[in-house]
């Protein structure tokens, strides 16, 4: 009995594993297993009737046959993904980390002795205090004990509980019994109660012993925690909340550690005493190994500081933690640039202002072989180099392609004196005019560039760039917004020239982050009209990739241009917990 296409698709999707997987769940081999038709048909949850129906339908339905082929091809592609070797230093990292842990476990007493006594006692007391309050039963028992203590206190002083009223308030409450039985002993009892209650109430006003007052200069001394009462676990008192804020910086500082350690902490892995000992070792001058990422280096230091201000920058010196200091300096530089070197943040007419140099693989080969350079003024000597090349490939029909056609461009940012100098190698007058126009509009574009510097998202900058390019009379122009770092090299290879309305083509971006950037990320955003193929997302795509120090970021993009548009290439570096824009470059993609 023939089945419909819908039934066939449903069966394909529901029994896909049975249709294409191996027998008995064997590991898939590199040869597509569905090629072994007999084996695939043997192991199946489909009944023979269902299978025959599907096969009969597939024999006469090319659409469903293509669907099955697609699913099989997709699975084959997953099977054939290459195996990645682990980083070569990973084993050494694990080994050294383990050695540290084992060493810490083996010599906990030595590690304890190496610490400062006050710091040790305070940290351990805080840890034990925090552990104590983690159990609800203990909290309940502490409440019961506190209630009992107050009851006992009230009983001893013969004051009805609660008795927090002042003397003037307690006296009228006692007067009615005296009126009922106006005899001697009750009167004495009242006086006795008043005598006992008065000093007690006075003490409540002061609330602290002289010793406590001497050690705690705070005016609201009822919250001052004498840290010299280690036996407070038996009877919890108001000193408990004091310990918690003191621990807060420690936890926060731990989050600055490596990703793996953060994973352990965030996953709720309970720390063993050995880990704490590692932390203490790290504080000790002789314990920390430079090859090992610090686990809880600053914890003890921070824990000994009373104020949350102690959370501020971690002070342990390892390769992992040089980043904050460097970022701080970069940030400071950035701020200085924002004030004193605002002209350096202006728009740089690099890629697109000169049609010959920045057509980005749009011009024919002879044109693109010309090198173009534009010299711009800046207080820094900035170099932004790039290139556009076009090479033969599987491009759309009708697109002229030639192998190894390369055009390089170079934008050098020099001193302000060279603002109006002729660009090196630029032969076209429009390029010069555009550059002069840009230099003339420097004051106008500086605030805009500042805004771009502060934001990394949105199409506003793209739109501004497009309008700026159009104002320069070049619709095929790209533009470079050099935000900070002068040493970025960006090379754009476009094997196939994307053209409006054409089928998908590919483009290749090669970005080399500056050497001082430890970790970089590249984002590519297509403007409206540029369709970057990513899972059916049509208008925009955000591509992110990471690269370690000095490593090139290579991006291969598939483009479908329905209209002229731009590619916004944003290079970011890791900064704190997020990413900071280093450079933003806008590439205009032409239409036919």
């Amino acid at each position, binding site marked *: 009995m023939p089945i419909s296409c819908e039934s066939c698709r449903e069966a394909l*999707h*529901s029994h*896909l*594993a049975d249709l294409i997987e191996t027998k008995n*769940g*064997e*590991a*898939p*081999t*590199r040869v597509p297993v569905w090629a072994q038709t007999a084996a695939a048909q043997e192991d199946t949850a489909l009944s023979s009737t269902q299978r025959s129906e599907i096969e009969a339908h597939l024999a006469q339905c090319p659409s469903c046959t293509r669907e099955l*082929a*697609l*699913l*099989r*091809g*997709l699975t*084959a*592609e*997953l*099977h*054939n*993904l*290459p*195996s*990645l*070797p*682990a*980083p070569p230093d*990973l*084993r050494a*990292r*694990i*080994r050294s980390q*383990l050695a540290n*842990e*084992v060493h810490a476990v083996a010599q906990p007493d030595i590690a304890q002795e190496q610490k400062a006594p006050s710091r040790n006692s305070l940290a351990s007391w805080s840890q034990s205090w925090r552990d104590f309050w983690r159990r609800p039963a203990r909290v309940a028992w502490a409440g019961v004990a506190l209630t009992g203590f107050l009851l006992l206190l009230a009983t001893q002083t013969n004051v009805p509980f609660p008795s927090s009223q002042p003397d003037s308030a307690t006296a009228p409450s006692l007067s009615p019994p005296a009126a009922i039985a106006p005899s001697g002993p009750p009167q004495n009892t009242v006086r006795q109660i008043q005598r006992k209650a008065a000093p007690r109430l006075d003490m409540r006003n002061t609330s602290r012993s002289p010793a406590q007052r001497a050690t705690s200069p705070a005016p609201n001394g009822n919250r001052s925690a004498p840290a010299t009462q280690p036996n407070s676990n038996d009877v919890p008192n108001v000193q408990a909340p004091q310990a918690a804020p003191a621990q807060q910086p420690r936890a926060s500082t731990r989050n600055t550690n*490596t*990703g*793996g350690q953060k*994973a*352990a902490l*965030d*996953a709720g*892995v309970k720390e*063993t005493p050995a880990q704490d000992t590692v932390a203490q070792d790290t504080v000790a001058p002789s314990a920390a190994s430079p090859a090992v990422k610090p686990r809880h280096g600053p914890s003890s230091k921070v824990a000994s500081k009373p104020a949350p201000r102690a959370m501020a920058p971690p002070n342990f010196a390892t390769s992992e933690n040089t980043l904050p200091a460097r970022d701080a300096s970069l940030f400071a530089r950035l701020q200085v640039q924002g004030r004193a070197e605002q002209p350096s943040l202006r728009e740089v007419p690099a890629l697109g202002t000169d049609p010959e140099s920045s057509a980005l693989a749009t011009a024919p080969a002879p044109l693109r072989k010309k090198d173009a350079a534009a010299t711009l003024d800046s207080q820094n000597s900035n170099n932004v180099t790039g290139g556009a090349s076009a090479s033969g*490939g*599987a491009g759309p029909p009708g697109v002229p392609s030639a192998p190894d056609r390369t055009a390089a461009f170079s934008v050098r940012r020099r001193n302000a004196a060279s603002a109006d100098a002729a660009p090196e190698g630029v032969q076209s007058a429009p390029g010069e005019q555009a550059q002069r126009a840009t230099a003339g509009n420097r004051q106008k574009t500086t605030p805009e560039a500042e805004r771009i510097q502060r934001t990394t998202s949105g199409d506003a900058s793209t739109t501004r760039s497009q309008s700026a390019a159009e104002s320069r009379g070049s619709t095929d122009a790209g533009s470079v917004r050099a935000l900070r770092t002068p040493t970025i090299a960006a090379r754009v290879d476009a094997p196939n020239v994307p053209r409006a309305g054409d089928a*998908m083509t*590919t483009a290749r971006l090669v970005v080399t982050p500056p050497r001082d950037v430890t970790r970089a990320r590249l984002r590519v955003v297509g403007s409206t009209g540029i369709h970057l193929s*990513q*899972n*059916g997302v049509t208008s925009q795509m*955000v*591509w992110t990739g*990471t690269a370690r120090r000095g490593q090139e*970021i*290579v*991006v*291969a993009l*598939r483009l479908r241009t329905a209209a002229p548009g731009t590619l916004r290439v944003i290079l970011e570096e890791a900064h704190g917990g997020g990413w900071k824009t280093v450079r933003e470059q806008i590439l205009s993609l032409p239409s036919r």
Partner: protein
Amino acid sequence: MSTHSAPAPTPESTLQLVERCRKGDLAAFDEIVALHQNRIYNLCFWSLGDADEAADATQETFLRAWRAIAKFRGESAFATWLHRIALNVTHDAARRRGRAPLPFSAATSTDDELPDTDPPDPAPGPAQIAAQHERRLAVRRALAALPENHRTVLVLFDIEGYSYEEAAALLELPIGTLKSRLNRARVALRERLEECRELFEEGASPTF
């Protein structure tokens, strides 16, 4: 992912190493790391999509394994136990990252550096190489866009090459549930690749 650079660990040698690890033998654990690091790294890499995060997750996996190796009772294979730890680590990392998209360094920066483990084609033309590259990029992006549970079953079964039983044991799922989830994951992956289905139809056609 059918081939791995590290030799396949044999159960006997692994159990002996585990016994030595329980006595505190760091050298034995170092051998375990050498045996399993590639598979664990690959699992973390394809689950997280970022080389750095995968390295950190691999390190964390082995550290957790070392701390808990005394609790390993041998009821399951050590590799299964280790991979379950790795799955927990990657799950924690993914949860910590929240809804942020997976980075695509898997699809780009590392792609050109990796050796192509495919059997050498007698005469792979530039067009075929480019098409294969495009297919891989598309698959990796689509994989990164999948929900975590779908991505996990695909990584375990299709990429890492686990059997139904092993993957079900790792995920603590019945085999039927695993198969249905695998089907849904493949269909979801296929829907995300609708844009470039011609790549897979062309690429898959020679094998049919």
